[in-house]
């Protein structure tokens, strides 16, 4: 799975958290927390309030043990959905991260062995109303196709001020997602003024292709992420504070105003995801408002970091292809074509002689 970029340098985030410039807690809700909280949140240090959810109780037990003594990290053994209750859940022992509310099968990849079990399901809105979770700044959802239900049960939470969402998604259609999974999720995000900000994806070649190669004794490195249709996407949706201020008519409903802390948090999200140019743009556009809290010039100097994201492999390949195409189509290359032809001719006549 191609993860979204993580900018571990994050000089702005380190500065605002250590200098006390962020005066509110930064609340993260992680639905499908198997594997633990992302390392990117470690940079928030004591500002972080983390609530992680997973349907697999043994995963939660392990995370509680690993995080013992960290009072700002809470792990809950619930599935999250559109209704409070109990549901059948299919555990995939071969690959626990692929466990799902949906039974696998019928897809082209080989279906995995599954174990069904009943799990408690809670709406995030119920947990917010009950005070189990606070107002959330960042919501992460990775629940193997059950994302729509999570969002349907989190409308109040989203409305209360979520600034960004990271979600797993794909472009497949199904009876549940007739316009595609992505279209459904993007529509819900947009209802809460969260716009598409970034994506990462993997490619998986189909089983029949791998079998055809195996017959010729060709073994494919399926982890290379080069072959096959883009399969699973990680997408970042975020409030675009500059667009909201400058292009109000782009929005069907007016986005709720944000305070200085929320503005700083949005910049933190952008910086941690390697979108420092967007964070910097926010600092420049809202310099007056931010100036009461922090040294904007210093913030801009910290965010102007050309190494805020490492180019990924796919990007590097496409960059090279583009460069070749630009070079070969350039006037410089075309006007010197006769010279190269002449050189080839000379070489040929030398060889002939």
């Amino acid at each position: 799975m191609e993860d979204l970029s993580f900018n571990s340098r994050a000089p702005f985030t380190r500065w605002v958290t250590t200098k006390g410039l962020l005066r509110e807690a930064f609340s993260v809700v992680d639905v499908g927390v198997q594997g633990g909280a992302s390392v990117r949140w470690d940079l928030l240090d004591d500002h972080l309030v983390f609530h992680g959810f997973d349907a697999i109780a043994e995963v939660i037990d392990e995370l509680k043990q690993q995080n013992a003594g960290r009072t700002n990290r809470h792990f809950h053994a619930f599935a999250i959905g559109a209704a409070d209750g109990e549901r059948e859940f299919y555990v995939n022992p071969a690959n626990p991260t692929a466990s799902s509310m949906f039974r696998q099968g019928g897809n082209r990849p080989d279906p995995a062995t599954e174990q069904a079990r009943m799990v408690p399901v809670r709406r995030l809105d119920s947990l917010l109303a009950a005070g189990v979770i606070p107002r959330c700044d960042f919501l992460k959802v990775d629940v193997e196709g059950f994302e729509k239900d999570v969002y349907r049960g989190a409308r109040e939470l989203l409305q209360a001020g979520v600034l960004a969402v990271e979600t797993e998604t794909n472009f497949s259609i199904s009876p549940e997602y007739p316009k595609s999974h992505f279209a459904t999720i993007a529509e819900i995000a947009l209802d809460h003024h969260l716009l598409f900000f970034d994506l990462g994806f993997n490619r998986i070649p189909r089983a029949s292709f791998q079998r055809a190669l195996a017959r010729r004794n060709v073994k494919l490195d399926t982890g290379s992420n080069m072959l096959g249709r883009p399969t699973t996407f990680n997408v970042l949706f975020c409030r675009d504070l500059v667009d909201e201020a400058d292009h109000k008519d782009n929005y069907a409903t007016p986005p709720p105003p944000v305070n200085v802390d929320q503005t700083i948090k949005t910049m933190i999200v952008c910086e941690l995801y390697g979108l420092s140019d967007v964070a910097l743009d926010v600092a420049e556009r809202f310099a007056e408002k931010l100036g009461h809290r922090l040294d904007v010039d210093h913030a801009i100097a910290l965010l102007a970091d050309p190494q805020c994201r490492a180019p990924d492999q796919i990007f590097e390949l496409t960059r090279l292809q583009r460069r070749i195409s630009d070079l070969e189509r350039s006037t410089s290359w075309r006007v010197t074509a006769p010279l190269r032809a002449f050189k080839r001719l000379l070489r040929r006549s030398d060889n002939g002689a």
Partner: protein
Amino acid sequence: MDLYFNEAAKFTRWVTAAGVLQEPFVLVDVGVQGGEHQHWNLLGDHLVVHGFDALEEAIMQLRRQNWRANRHYHAFAAGKADEERTFYFNAANPTASSMYRQGPSRFDVQRREQTRKVQVRRLDTLFAEGLIPRADFLKIDVEGFEMDVLLGAQELIGAGVLAVETESNFGISASLRTGHFSAISDTLVDHGLLVFDLAFNRVPRASFQRALVAKGLPEASIHEGIGKPSTLNVLFCRDAIQETDEADSYPTPPRPLSPDQLIKLIIIYELHGLNDIAVDTVDRFTTSLTPRVDVVRAIELLADPACRNESLDTALGRRVRELEQSTSWRITKPLRALKRAWQKISSST
């Protein structure tokens, strides 16, 4: 940012050379400035191109360069209504010319706009009049006007378009409040056309570039991968396997595919480096393809681990170095410097 092109395309070369494909392959290219993509040349005489561009000079140039009988270039813009419209020609970068006047941007964009009136035609009107035939592949690159082209091409797409390549973006606007990409995807899903591949670039914001310069650093190049994904090229295709095996995923059943259409779909997959899907399609439709194609041979040709060559990084890197270090590139350096200086002077005036 171009989609991947599998130059080897052994299956395509075979079916076109061996006469396995019995129909022409019709490409409708809207925004054809610069010519259709070179990968279509592999179709040889099977290819029929109908290219459209609002820039008459671009069409005249293409007509001069392509005298072949199966290449047709039309000096129209395509849209959702037959009408005359104002077109904003960008002299600094003609490929960025658009039906929309460019507004202030958070990105540094070079512009010198001239307005002109152009003829707009619906593709459906041209299809009904017989000016264009049923299309197999529709390519659209019209700087934000893509939805209008699609809205005027519903009949054409419904008649059997197998794949669409379109430029898009994830931005929202007053006219497309659900976003450009979502609007396009929603329209194409109705015709059973699903996302099969995408490529995109990233553009850093102008304020970031200014801040880098203020720190004494060079501006980030567009190739460095900084910024949000900006312009996308997306390939939407019919998925013959899903249409057959998971028909209930589709709100309305897509039109059944003939053997020639199946072969064309496999060609499209292969040309875009999606050979695994091509193999899977041959494997799934062996029975219907067998009267036309030697299926074993087809799978052998398509099972090409180099279809999206994993060693491309080194090969591409070598080629870039070769080009940049060539005598041709080095001796023309003063010319490029002169061009940059001229562009700077022109943009400041």
